[in-house]
């Protein structure tokens, strides 16, 4: 069988599960959940350092950037200006150009502002960034992002942190069918079954944060998502059976007594 390789821009990944590192109780739990998830790429945010409390632990003490790809995001940015500022700083800090762009449009729903997102994608690509773009599940806008040079399309299943799962399977399917770059479902996944569905539909990967961090047992849930993604991917590669509207017996008719 051909090797199933997952590559975003120039970065090869072993796991199709990407996890966020927010909302955990502490860094020990974060690190354990990341390990249990099998993810080799995690998202991180860029924030002011605490200058008064020097002993406060920092994330990179717990997640080794040499072993795990840190994907800087622009979470919390509501304008192109803020997003650009954040990612330029991230590039200076990390030294890598693969980043995740999200420009939010509304504090209540956290839905993306696609006008700012498209504009910012163009600028970042011009500046040499490899941009993975969080977006609505609009197939035409997703295609536009790809045309403007996005390295991955990251449509939402439902709003960030909502856990509502897929609300428009058809749109996600259309995005997948149109895309030549990886499609990674980014937000709204609530349970491992949602992640399996994403992979069965043909997504290249999924990004999970809240569904793991907010589970009663995050480390066990991380493992559940790992298995769910592998299972969904295998199902996609295997090719599911055709749907029929009538029954079809599983046992032979011939030889019935």
């Amino acid at each position, binding site marked *: 069988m051909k090797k199933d390789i997952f590559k975003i821009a120039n970065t090869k990944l072993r796991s199709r599960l990407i996890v966020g590192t927010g909302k955990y109780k502490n860094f020990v739990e974060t690190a354990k959940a990341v390990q249990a998830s099998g993810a080799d790429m995690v998202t991180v945010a860029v924030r002011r350092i605490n200058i008064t409390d020097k002993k406060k632990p920092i994330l990179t003490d717990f997640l080794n950037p040499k072993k795990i790809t840190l994907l800087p*995001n622009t979470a919390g940015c509501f304008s192109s200006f803020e997003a650009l500022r954040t990612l330029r700083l991230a590039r*200076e800090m990390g030294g890598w150009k693969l980043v995740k762009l999200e420009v939010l449009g509304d504090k209540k729903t956290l839905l993306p502002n696609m006008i700012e997102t498209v504009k910012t994608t163009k600028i970042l690509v011009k500046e040499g960034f490899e941009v993975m773009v969080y977006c609505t599940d609009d197939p035409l806008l997703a295609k536009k992002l790809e045309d403007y040079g996005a390295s991955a399309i990251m449509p939402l299943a439902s709003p960030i942190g909502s856990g509502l799962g897929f609300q428009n399977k058809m749109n996600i399917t259309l995005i997948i069918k149109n895309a030549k770059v990886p499609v990674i479902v980014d937000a709204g996944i609530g349970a491992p079954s949602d992640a399996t569905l994403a992979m069965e539909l043909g997504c290249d990967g999924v990004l999970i944060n809240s569904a793991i961090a907010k589970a009663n047992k995050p480390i066990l849930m991380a493992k559940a998502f790992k298995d769910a993604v592998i299972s969904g991917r295998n199902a996609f590669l295997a090719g599911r059976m055709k749907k029929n509207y009538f029954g079809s017996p599983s046992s032979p008719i011939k030889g019935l007594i």
Partner: protein
Amino acid sequence: MAKIQLNGKKISIRSNLSILDLLKKYKLHDRKVAIEHNGSIVAKSNYNKKFLKNKDRVEIVHFIGGG
């Protein structure tokens, strides 16, 4: 003495302090951080060449957990 704004807070520093001196003052020189000085990003190679003056704005950022 010079008064600067560091991560949104007003602080007093001695005159002729470089970015590198500022990082050392807060023991951040070995940490993975990025710096913005009056709205422009400062390359690591310029930390000892950029000096702070009155009313400067400095942002020191790092990676934290996020989704």
